[in-house]
């Protein structure tokens, strides 16, 4: 393989990761890291460095559309970013103390459970009445979004903001510890705990993950893990893919989106479990 061929392959890997990541509220690291390590045989550090850049590219590229079209809830996103960014810094510090092997297993179990829970929640059209949440009321977090698949504006209320904030801190910590984008935990936290529609959860997760990744990007940059000749084609591919994926979200059937998310997260959980056990 020549450097030019490698560049094109990395671009294609990025495009797939960005496209799926934009739809599912994930950064695309779940595609980028295995493709670079398992398929291309690259060093894990370089793969994670490229993945951090990919997460930021997916987030920024997709959020252009999600913010403009009012699908991402910016107030919820920015409020929860306080927890994810401090969590990311905590994780970066804890990384030297804790054993990653144990973390992978815990993370795998948590992810597997939330994938099943997200998949089971079929009653998206008839969401049970949300419990009152004075914090969400006072911060003005409730909202609405245009859903092209249902041909109307969907109004929603937010619940359990404090639990959501706590879960986001955990998501941020895991992200800082394991160098993974934590969209896999952010989307279930918003979907299951806070009761947001699945499209608002994935779009808002996408809006947030760029900030979480930026909080730890400096560390990877300084370590020399961000290789320009590997990260550049991945980032450019991700941007193209994310712009395409973001266009599809409004028109997709929410049940299909939910199923796709559950399948991808379950696969990520299995991958984590293998890493922890072997």
């Amino acid at each position, binding site marked *: *393989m*020549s*450097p*030019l061929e*490698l*560049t094109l392959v990395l671009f294609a890997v990025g495009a797939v990761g960005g496209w799926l990541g934009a739809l599912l509220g994930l950064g695309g690291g779940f595609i980028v890291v295995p493709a670079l390590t398992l398929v*291309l045989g*690259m*060093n894990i*550090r*370089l793969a994670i460095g490229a993945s951090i*850049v990919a997460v930021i590219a997916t*987030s*920024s*590229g997709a*959020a*252009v559309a999600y*913010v*403009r079209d*009012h699908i991402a809830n*910016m*107030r919820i996103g*920015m409020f929860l970013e*306080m927890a994810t*960014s401090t969590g*990311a*810094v905590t994780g*970066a510090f804890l990384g030297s103390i804790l054993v990653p092997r144990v973390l992978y297993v815990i993370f795998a179990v948590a992810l597997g459970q939330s994938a099943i829970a997200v998949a089971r929640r079929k009653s998206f059209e008839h969401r049970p009445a949300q419990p009152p949440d004075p914090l969400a*009321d006072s911060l*003005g977090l*409730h*909202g*609405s*979004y*245009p859903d*092209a698949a249902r*041909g*109307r*504006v969907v*109004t929603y*209320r937010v619940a359990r903001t404090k639990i959501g904030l706590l879960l986001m801190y955990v998501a941020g910590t895991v992200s800082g510890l394991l160098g993974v984008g934590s969209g896999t935990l952010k989307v279930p936290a918003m979907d299951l705990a806070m009761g947001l529609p699945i499209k608002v959860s994935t779009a808002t997760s996408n809006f947030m993950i*760029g*900030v979480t*990744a*930026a*909080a730890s*990007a*400096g*560390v990877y*940059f*300084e370590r*020399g893990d*961000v*290789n*320009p*000749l*590997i990260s*550049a084609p991945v*980032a*450019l591919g991700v941007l193209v893919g994310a712009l395409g994926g973001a266009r599809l979200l409004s028109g997709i059937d929410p049940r299909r989106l939910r199923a796709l998310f559950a399948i991808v997260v379950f696969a990520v959980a299995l991958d984590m479990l293998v890493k922890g056990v072997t």
Partner: protein
Amino acid sequence: MEPDQKLGPGQSTDSASERTIRRLAPAVSGVLRVGVVISSSVIAAGVALTFVSSASYTSARRAVPQLRRGVLHPAGLHAPRTVAAVVNGVGHGDGPALVMLGLLLLIATPVLRVAVSTIGFALDHDTRFVLITLVVLAVLVGSFAIAT
């Protein structure tokens, strides 16, 4: 779609927060768009420059196995790790340094987005969200300052 779609989020709840978001959304979306366009242009230019200026990288097949093993300087190319080294490399017409500049601009884009939100909330006298976004901004800037 129904005509009330234009109202955007929060239409049935808090009208003050709805107004803020309606004004803020185009600015935030615009900052992200400008950040993405500029950073991707710089990255693409850096990749092109690397291929054009470094014949050894373009032709050397051994560069790829080196990259795979984690050798960060294939074919004599260097990846700068500090902002000063990036700026210095760009000044000398170094392709990988130009890519790094583009990657740094990409990393800065979400940070800039938070800063723009802070200004937006301040203009609307939404004190709590000014504080919330300032906390996020402080963590981001602090983590980067500690790391580099």
